[in-house]
């Protein structure tokens, strides 16, 4: 067994004998420090071999992990498999990155899922569902207006009454909102056409900044009939939606 260090003082007593409680010439005050052991010191044992081997193994594992997940040290290579931009690792980095509205929309939908839930069913009696909702299926210009400025007061969705408040999301960009609506209209059991960025842009410029909508205001809205080119435009997007859907499920 290792003996306690002698503090460099060769005259110090062996710690087994160092207690001298009978000593009367020591002031009473010193008792606490007198009964102390010597100040701690360090032994000379060598590090165990197993520990050193373990450290080498850890360093190797750390090196492997670093190289496996370094993302090429590319500042544009974000963490996680759901990154919404294509990495462009095989192609030239300078080419513009392709944005998939379904992946972008799914990410934006993180803002919505605490109320409308990941499965789009909402919460009965509290938050209306988006899945198979007649509002989601309806005119995308109204949908855009609700999303931009929010909605307040009673509303009926899928024959159920709700009375709550939804905040507006006008602070998000047109691209993000269009992607979000496209995602909502193509997710779960929904199979409705995509929403284009220009729809959001138009709605935003027409309503400006305003308070949340009520049901009456939405019903009294007089929107011009949709231009024909818009509907033509929507068709190819709807067909490509199937592909996007499949991609998302991967």
């Amino acid at each position, binding site marked *: 067994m290792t003996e306690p260090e002698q503090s460099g003082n060769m005259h110090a007593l062996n710690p087994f004998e160092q207690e001298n409680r009978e000593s009367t010439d020591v002031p009473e005050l010193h008792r606490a420090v007198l009964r102390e052991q010597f100040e701690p010191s360090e032994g*000379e044992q060598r590090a165990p071999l197993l520990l050193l081997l373990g450290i080498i193994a850890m360093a190797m594992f750390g090196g492997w992990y670093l190289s496996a997940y370094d993302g090429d040290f*590319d500042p*544009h290579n974000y*963490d996680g498999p759901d990154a919404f931009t294509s990495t462009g690792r095989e192609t030239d980095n300078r080419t513009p990155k392709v944005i998939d509205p379904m992946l972008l929309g799914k990410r934006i939908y993180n803002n919505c899922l605490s109320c409308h839930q990941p499965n789009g069913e909402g919460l009965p009696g509290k938050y209306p569902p988006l899945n198979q909702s007649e509002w989601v299926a309806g005119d995308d210009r109204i949908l855009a207006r609700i999303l931009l400025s929010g909605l307040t007061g009673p509303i009926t969705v899928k024959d159920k009454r709700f009375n709550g408040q939804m905040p507006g999301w006008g602070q998000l960009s047109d691209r993000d909102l269009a992607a979000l609506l496209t995602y909502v209209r193509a997710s779960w059991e929904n199979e409705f056409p995509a929403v284009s960025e220009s729809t959001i842009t138009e709605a935003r410029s027409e309503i400006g900044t305003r308070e949340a909508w009520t049901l009456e205001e939405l019903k009294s809205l007089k929107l011009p009939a949709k231009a024909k080119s818009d509907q033509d435009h929507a068709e190819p997007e709807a067909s490509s939606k199937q592909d996007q859907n499949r991609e998302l499920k991967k």
Partner: protein
Amino acid sequence: MNSEDNVSVTHPRTTDAQRRFEIDRSCREVVVFWYVSAVCWLLFGSLLAMIASIKMHTPGFLADAAWLTFGRVRPAHLNAMIYGWASMSGVGTLLWLMARLSKIKLPWREMLLIAGIYWNVFVAIGIWQILAGNGTSIEWLEFPWWISIALGAVFAILIVLAVKMLTTRREKHLYVSQWYLLGATIWFPFLYITATVLIHSPAAIGVAKGTTNWWFAHNVLGLWLTPIGLASAYYMIPKVIGRPIYSYALSILGFWTLALFYNWAGTHHLIGGPLPAWVITVGTVGSLMMFVPVITVAVNHHMTMVSHFKKLKFSPTLRFTVFGAMAYTVVSVQGSLTALRTVNLTGHFTHYTIAHAHLGVYAFYSMVAYGAMYYIMPRLIEREWYSSNLIKVHFWCTAVGITMYWVGLTWAGWFQGMMMNNPDIPFLDIVRYTIPFLWSRSIAGILMTIGHLAFAILVFRMVRRDGAWLVEPTLLRSIKNQQMEPAPRLEGADL
């Protein structure tokens, strides 16, 4: 002086004791002030913790008072504990250990007392600002920025003081505790001021703020509380059992690997976040490599303790310190594993993380701090602890409390994470699942608070000098009736 010199001729050990006694005397007012302030913050922080914890399962509790809403009480609790309890007790231990190990009297006592008052005032203003709704919403830096700057100034004193004490030291050999203490005094102000400037200055935007925030928050534990806790454990364990630390080589290895790796670990909090992937990977590797210092320190402490575990039955200092040192191993291993992406996927954003944080700051740091205070305060005040039973209450309430807290929330958090990753489970079902565990947290919190009250009674009795005159250390159980071998050695067991 003459009589003492005479004594030293016949009994060399008394000069040693005399010198230690004088060093302790020089620390008395300063360290006692920082310690007593720390205990007051501990009680106040426990109160805030109880309010926050009860709100988790009974949301209506105190819900009408804006000052006591969850979003204010929780950061107030965190800051009261980190900057009030942990930092103040840490500075107290740091000053005493530095003086003891450098074998010089504590310099600048008036300034350190004023710094203690100043620190209390600014932490109090900070907590008041948080409760008033002026918190910054940046985790671990919730104080308004001007308070962070004001607190940071105290550390300037601590750096200069630590360097001054080391350069004027009488003991040539630097003990491992001193490295850790010097590291803590240099690292933390750098962290604190850099983070405050980088986060609050208008130049900082977006992702850079988040990265800095977690780099800082993780390092408050890693490069401020951990070094002080380890310095204390490295001192108290060999001191109480009367035996050198197992290996100087392991001490060096543990210190430098901690200095090298801990600083990188913070970004593992941002796995899945909008950071470049490599930043997070580097954080994960840093966390994994923390295995090295942790296992090294664990081996070093364990090999020192081997064959002395019996003393845990007697010495409060040893029992608290060893509990803390063991918790350090557990929390660090858990932390390294949590940093892996696959584990983080489940554990992050759940109660699991909260359990982990408390294991670090409470089961490791706070328990070690209690141990140090049990050793240091009798030497400063020259009285023994008032009651052995209250020490037992303190130990068992806090030890059982934190264990229950950790087990309950880790379990709840892990299953919560697995359920949240399954989109078919409605969110409210998950919330309902965790409620029993949130109750267990509140009960654990009550237990720990009882322990804190026992400790506060002990400390206030100590300050009033109600304890016995220095005759026998207050031990958890009396040594006299035990048939221990070798008996003479235990006769003088330290408090």
